């Protein structure tokens, strides 16, 4: 292994899982998500000389990811991606573990609601809420003014809340868990 390969292995490769987590939510299917992450890491490798050591490698990688995604042209989201992510949860629910159902239903509802959002709204929620990037970092990743990022994530949060059914949005308050589950299953 060359010195460059070692540095890349230690600097960039540990973030592949985070990249894949986001890619699965923006790409059209699981194979496309893996291809997107592969392309991201290979682009990062080709440009590793230009990466300033000690700076924010995560933001750099996610910027490459989104640039690669937009360069491919946004393919329509298809239900298979949602189904593949939801499968595990729904299988568990169908096994009839009553104790597990409320959290599983609620998690499935949150997951499904996220996928129903627009690409732009989903992207900022994935980056800001799930991956923990600041608004300034998101502005760098998405090549947007910070004001645009701020308003976009506010609207995304509102859209997510609206997508969640009234009962399920109440699962944030523990006593409503069972009621929500009953409504989802029926």
């Amino acid at each position, binding site marked *: 292994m060359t010195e460059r*390969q*070692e540095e890349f*292995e230690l600097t960039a*490769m540990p973030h592949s899982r985070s990249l894949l987590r986001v890619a*699965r939510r923006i790409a059209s299917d699981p194979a496309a998500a893996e291809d997107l992450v*592969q392309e991201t890491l290979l682009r990062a490798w080709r440009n590793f*000389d230009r990466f300033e050591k000690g700076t924010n490698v995560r933001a750099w990688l996610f910027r490459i990811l989104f640039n690669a995604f937009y360069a491919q042209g946004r393919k329509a989201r298809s239900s298979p991606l949602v189904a593949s992510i939801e499968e595990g949860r729904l299988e568990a629910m169908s096994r009839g573990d009553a104790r597990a159902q409320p959290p599983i239903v609620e998690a499935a509802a*949150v997951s499904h609601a996220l996928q129903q959002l627009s690409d732009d709204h989903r992207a900022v929620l994935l980056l800001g809420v799930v991956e923990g990037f600041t608004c300034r970092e998101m502005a760098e990743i998405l090549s947007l003014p910070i004001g645009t990022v701020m308003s976009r994530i*506010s609207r995304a949060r509102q859209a997510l*809340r609206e997508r969640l059914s009234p009962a399920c949005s109440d699962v944030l308050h523990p006593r409503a868990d069972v009621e929500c589950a009953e409504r989802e299953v029926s």
Partner: protein
Amino acid sequence: MNCHERAELTPLYLSGELEEERAAAFGAHLKSCAECIGELQHQARLDARLHDVLLAEDVNATKVDQRVREMIASRAASQPAYRDESRRWILATAGIAAAFALLVLAGHRFLLGKQVAQVYADAARDDQMEVVQLQPRHWYSDPAQISVLAQKVGVPQSALQALQRGPYRLERAKICFLDKHLFLHVVFSDGQRDLSMFLRQRDAMSVQGSADEMMNGKLVQTADIGGEHVALFETPQLIVMVATTQSSDAASHLVAFAASKL
């Protein structure tokens, strides 16, 4: 600050980016506005739930990682060096490296009997180039950093600690690729010479050597490749290799020590 301003600044507040003065004004507004604090608490709960739901998903990047490493390795093999210092070293040692590669290939081919696993040749190459020829590599000598590297390849801290309770001092370590698998390459010193040890979590990779012997209750497989003596044994948890150009006695002593400790 009014409710509208509060709403506009909420993204910066939730991500911890508000500067001190505005954060104080934001907090003061929350204390006086029940509606805003209710809204913010509701949003924070939804954020937390979204975060937890997504992070609980099973995301396995192993396949992608492996493909990327293979593609990088194949491209690295075909591309010229890109840094001046590496280029100088490569030019300076090109003849030696080429000769060594021929010896490795020749040794590999002429090992009698069994098909020797590629990992022996790779270990021999790494020891020759990185420890004997001292080609520039980014080594770590800080114990805390070495511990982090060890975790990446599934080597428990207890194993590293056990190996340091004896006549060998752990000098430095780095991650390397042997037969497309990540290993921890550790350099031990006995006060007179540097010896390479390679460790990783045990898995199904091929480890067939050309000869074997029992040592401290462990089956040790060996191969001699291009002047390098390479020995390998497995524990329930680990694959352990020693590679050295020193006498096979030096390798045997380190292997026997490691086999007794792991």
